């Protein structure tokens, strides 16, 4: 058992545990914090997979920006906990069951049908990290230029949309 595999297993355990923590915690602030840990774990996976750029993006965008936003909203609305309610009592049970079935199915399907072959190389071997980053940038700004620009427009539109949604006209009170 190589060191890498051990690292993987530990990290996987962390990832699953934090994910479950997010899922099960009744306080959404804790959920959010668990999710941050999960994201960090995933970022380390990216590093392991030889994708440092994505790992950085993951940390900054997800763990940094997005989750902070979540926390803000949670605090803004005071929605850490929702009062208990007895609607749809068996929902949870089904959710677990079906999710488990789904996981089993997906794993089975992906592993048997997709048959991914090969082994993930160690990061330094997989590619020279800096080389990867430069090549990645070049590809991004040449063959993927249009989607890149479209994405930027999308972000702009989202920004405007958020402002429009949250903005209240002066004097209009609800």
């Amino acid at each position, binding site marked *: 058992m190589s060191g890498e595999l051990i690292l993987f297993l530990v990290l996987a355990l962390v990832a699953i545990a934090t994910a479950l923590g997010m899922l099960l915690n009744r306080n959404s602030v804790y959920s959010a914090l668990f999710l941050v840990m999960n994201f960090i774990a995933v970022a380390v996976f990216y590093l392991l997979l030889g994708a440092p750029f994505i790992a950085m993006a993951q940390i900054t965008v997800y763990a940094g920006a997005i989750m902070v936003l979540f926390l803000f909203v949670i605090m803004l609305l005071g929605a850490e906990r929702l009062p208990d309610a007895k609607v*749809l009592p068996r*929902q949870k*049970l*089904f959710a677990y*069951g*079906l999710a488990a*079935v*789904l996981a089993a199915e997906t794993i*089975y*399907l992906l592993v048997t049908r997709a048959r991914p072959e090969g082994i993930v190389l160690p990061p330094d071997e997989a590619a020279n990290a800096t080389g990867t980053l430069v090549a990645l940038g070049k590809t991004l700004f040449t063959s993927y230029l249009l989607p890149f620009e479209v994405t930027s427009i999308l972000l702009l539109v989202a920004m405007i949309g958020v402002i429009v949604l949250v903005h209240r006209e002066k004097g209009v009170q609800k």
Partner: protein
Amino acid sequence: MHLSETVNSGFFFLAPWLVFAPVIGLLINIIFGGWFMKRSWGERAVGVVASLASGASFVVSVLLAWSLAAGHGEAVIVPFLEWIHIGSLELDWAFRVDSLSTTMMLVVSGVGTLIHIYAIGYMHEDVRFKGDPGRFRRFFVFLNLFIAMMMILVSGDSYLMLFVGWEGVGLCSFLLIGFWYDMDTLGRPSWANSNAAKKAFVTNRVGDFGFLIAAFIMFWAFGSFQFDEVFEAAHSVAPGVIVAITLFMLVGVAGKSAQIPLYVWLPDAMAGPTPVSALIHAATMVTAGVYLITRSAELYTLVPQAQYIVAMTGAITALFAATIAVGQYDIKKVLAYSTISQLGFMVAAVGMGAFVAGMFHLVTHAFFKALLFLSAGSVILGLERGHHHAEHGHHEEHGKGKTKSPKGEKEGKRKEEHHEVFDPGDMRNMGGLRKTMPVTFWLYMIGTLALAGIVPFAGFWSKDEILLDASRHYPAVYILLSIAAFFTAFYMGRQIWMVFFGEPRHEAAAHAEESKPIITAPLMVLAALSLLGGALNLPFEGFHQLGHWLEYTLHEVEALPLDLQVAGISTLLALAAIFLSWLIYGRNPLKTGQPDPLKKPLGFIFTGMENKWFVDEGYFAVIINPFKKLSQFLADVIDWRFWHDWFHDTVIAGTYNWVSNIGLNLYADQKGIDAFANWLGAATQSISATMRKVQNGFVRSYALSVLLGVVLIVGYLILK
């Protein structure tokens, strides 16, 4: 367009101005008329512009006729505009100048211009009696539009252009009959006038339908609408096709020229102002049918069967309408039925192939019938003035200028019963006008004598020519027409005695005033023409000018010499009829409130005449009411209640709801999903309990069902 090279000589290039002159006139009146009307001289300006426009058309007609005569009468085609070009259909707007069309142009624009002038005076008073002076301008716009449309009709070089004018004059007729669209002929608020207008338009459309079908057959048989091409091709086509064309065309003629069975609109058309009745419903538009048949002479002469039907239609109409005229009391209604009857003469003539006679009668009729109508208008105005005068005399304390104001009417009702509804057109209100309106009386006399066919007035010569032709070829037609001629003289005599002789039967008649020169001057011109119009085509060797003139277009023209026997019989009949009318109406003048002296001896026959033989009622019972009921039925029951409400809303939407509610909800949802759940083998009861609430509105349960779907699909993919 084999003749178009001659366009450059003479005045032929002016042909489009036949139409454009009146169009410019009407545009001026539309655009600047409102501004004019605010001035004191506004009415005169509007009238003068319109009259000048119409006069310009007349001048162009004269120039064209002159050029044509100088060019030995050869037809000239003046191309103007390419209209519809698609596939094999090539339809152009071109002007055809030949002797036939110029004859019509001269009549239309000549009589038209005179009537324009007359209308300046007439409408000036009429709009005031009716209490809406603003409508003066509109009248002249419509009148100019009519001249333009009529010119398109007579000058078109193809059946289609003729049709354009044909429908166009129908429109003008609609507009002018409905000129006082918010009242009836007596000026009371009513739907009557607009109903009359609508009736005219729809009836004309029925005729137009026939015309259209004729045009379709023509196109697919001959490949063209152009006159020359049609006539050339007609010789190589089976006669059956031509019979169909000519008979469908006859439907069109019946509509426009008010022949049986479509004549019913013309008497109602008298709702229009009198100049309209004179111009459109006597002199010009209604003769378009006669023109059409004459124009299609080459088609009609190919099929004698069709000719016979046309001739009989005309003859029967002539007699039928003449009988109704005897029983009418309205001065204009008498003239209207007389017009139908005279149109019957013309149609009979052209049906017999006596095209020159038909055209001759058309021309003279235009003169004397216009004269009669306009004189009748003068009489009506005179009575209006008299009535006005009398009202003033009696109700000075009210000081109401307008007799037609509803308030005045109401008060009048309270005071004096007979003042409330005064009909200035009712001959029973007249009498003795010979003294109060002498000029009108003499003019009317000339018109009457011309219409009755007394030597040497124009009507004698033209009517005689028709009778002569009929006596030679179609004895049945001859007999019918002779009887009609007798009736004609009789009802005209009746009218003269009732209107101008005896004593006034109403104080309005007693106070009637003579009309101004602007009204009587055009009448005098028309009177002169009625007197001398016969000179156009005297039945003597060396005369026959109209015949020769039309020969250029019609090629073969039979010039009959005067037949003393026929002429003598018709004159005798006319004189006898006038004498008879004197016996009945002249010797013992009608008293106020006395019923018509014919009523007793004739009994139900006279009732029939009075009520137009109940033809309108028959049409209502047979066609109009069933049509209304059918469309009401279709609309309410079939379309709405059955198709819209029941079928679509109940059956389709209802079935859908039933299937989705009952079927899916109860059956599929409970049993189907239960079965699924059993098949899944896990927590049957609770799953179905959850699932039963599929439409519970909880987003999460929707998400759950999506998840279930995903699981099932992935499961299917695995098991596949």
